[in-house]
């Protein structure tokens, strides 16, 4: 598995690492991840998203310098994925209703290196704006041919692709006449506990985006654009599906690892 130049550093440190008589490691390479720019991320408390006051901590977070516990995380393999997992239009006997779309992109770290073999999980409502979930009471029809759930692994270059249908917007009870813009939920692991990301992908030109408190919770408006996919003719399959590109940048490693003498 080629996971950037750090993999090389790791290997060489492993071969030259010395071990004390009691079996304790004498040296260990810790290569921490960059911290987020707070303006590019939502805060926890954002009262226009009405439930956040009940569910957000008020005490300042404690900054935790990364240890082995934060720079490791679950590793997945191709055995975790089945053939139709990334094609949400082929998971039932018939085809789902709605606009068939291809959603594809590349997962990179913030150093510009691809993130290979990482698990991406998605979930979404159907074309009418209804989730196949027992608590969704929106009076729009369920689609017996659509579950709205998908997963895939990025390839060696960080690329991924899903085939699905375009989700519909739907009302929610956050404030009077509140509607969520059409979106697909994305969950990614990256290489470590520190790189975990759950986000939502939106569609270009959606008039509901500027009214959405979940998008607007992100202070830097430029960062909102990073959540909006781009229509791309090159990803559009003639006579078949519209193509949307959604590239995802995860946290990358700091410039220099440090070695711990033990």
């Amino acid at each position, binding site marked *: 598995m080629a996971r950037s130049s750090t993999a090389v550093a790791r290997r060489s440190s492993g071969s030259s690492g010395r071990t004390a008589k009691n079996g304790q490691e004498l040296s260990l390479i810790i290569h921490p991840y960059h911290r987020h720019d707070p303006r590019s991320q939502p805060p926890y408390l954002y009262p226009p998203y009405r439930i956040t006051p009940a569910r957000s901590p008020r005490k300042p977070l404690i900054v935790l310098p990364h240890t082995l*516990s934060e720079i490791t995380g679950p590793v997945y393999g191709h055995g975790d994925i089945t053939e139709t997992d990334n094609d949400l239009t082929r998971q039932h006997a018939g085809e789902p209703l709605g606009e068939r779309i291809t959603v594809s992109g590349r997962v990179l770290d913030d150093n510009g290196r691809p993130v290979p073999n990482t698990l991406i999980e998605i979930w979404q409502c159907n074309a009418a704006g209804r989730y196949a979930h027992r608590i969704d009471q929106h009076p729009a029809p369920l689609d017996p041919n659509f579950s709205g759930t998908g997963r895939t692994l990025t390839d060696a270059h960080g690329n991924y692709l899903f085939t699905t249908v375009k989700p519909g917007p739907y009302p929610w009870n956050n404030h009077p006449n509140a509607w969520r813009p059409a979106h697909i939920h994305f969950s990614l692991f990256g290489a470590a506990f520190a790189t975990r990301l759950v986000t939502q992908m939106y569609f270009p030109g959606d008039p509901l985006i500027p009214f959405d408190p979940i998008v607007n919770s992100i202070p830097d408006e430029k960062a909102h654009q990073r959540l909006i996919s781009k229509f791309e003719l090159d990803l559009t399959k003639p006579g078949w599906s519209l193509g949307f590109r959604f590239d995802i940048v995860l946290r990358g490693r700091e410039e220099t690892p440090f070695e711990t003498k033990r």
Partner: protein
Amino acid sequence: MKPRGKKPDLVPIPWQTVGPFFTITLTDPRPLPNIAGPDTKGERVKLVCTVFDREGAPVPDAMIEIWQANAEGKYNHPDDTQKKPVDPAFLGFGRMATNGEGICAFDTIKPGRVPGRGKSVQAPHLVVGVFARGVLKRLATRIYFAGDPANDEDPVLALVPKARRATLMAQPIAGEPGAWRCDVHLSGKRETVFFDV
């Protein structure tokens, strides 16, 4: 093809809440309550986690993710270069949604000690991610075991004001050997310590 010469935007993209419907992909098809299987080595523990909101009400639509080392204190990950054995019967990852009472439980083993920074050694702990509708980005915390003598020399606990350390301690459940209670208070008087990871 992307236009050449355009500098890519290399700022990590923003978090967004998991919302109320994540279970259809993240937990219902593949719940992971058994972090340890029958062949996993180590001292069996059951972690009973309850998530509470600011008013002390249970949160019925939260999700907890757990990542931990094996009984020897080794992570099943290529960046853990310690010369300790990986347990082939142990990945170390668990994930569950809370039920109507805000509860989810994990069957696992007590992790061994892993190195901290410098010469420090961390006390047995699990790293924990808490997600929920209304939680705009993951809340990161840890679970330690109350009464473990190694807690006194743990370098991460040392960063936490003494009065708040108890919020990170799992407490043994009376009458249920091996079972530990882990309460997560998102907010309020008993607010759990969360980390900027």
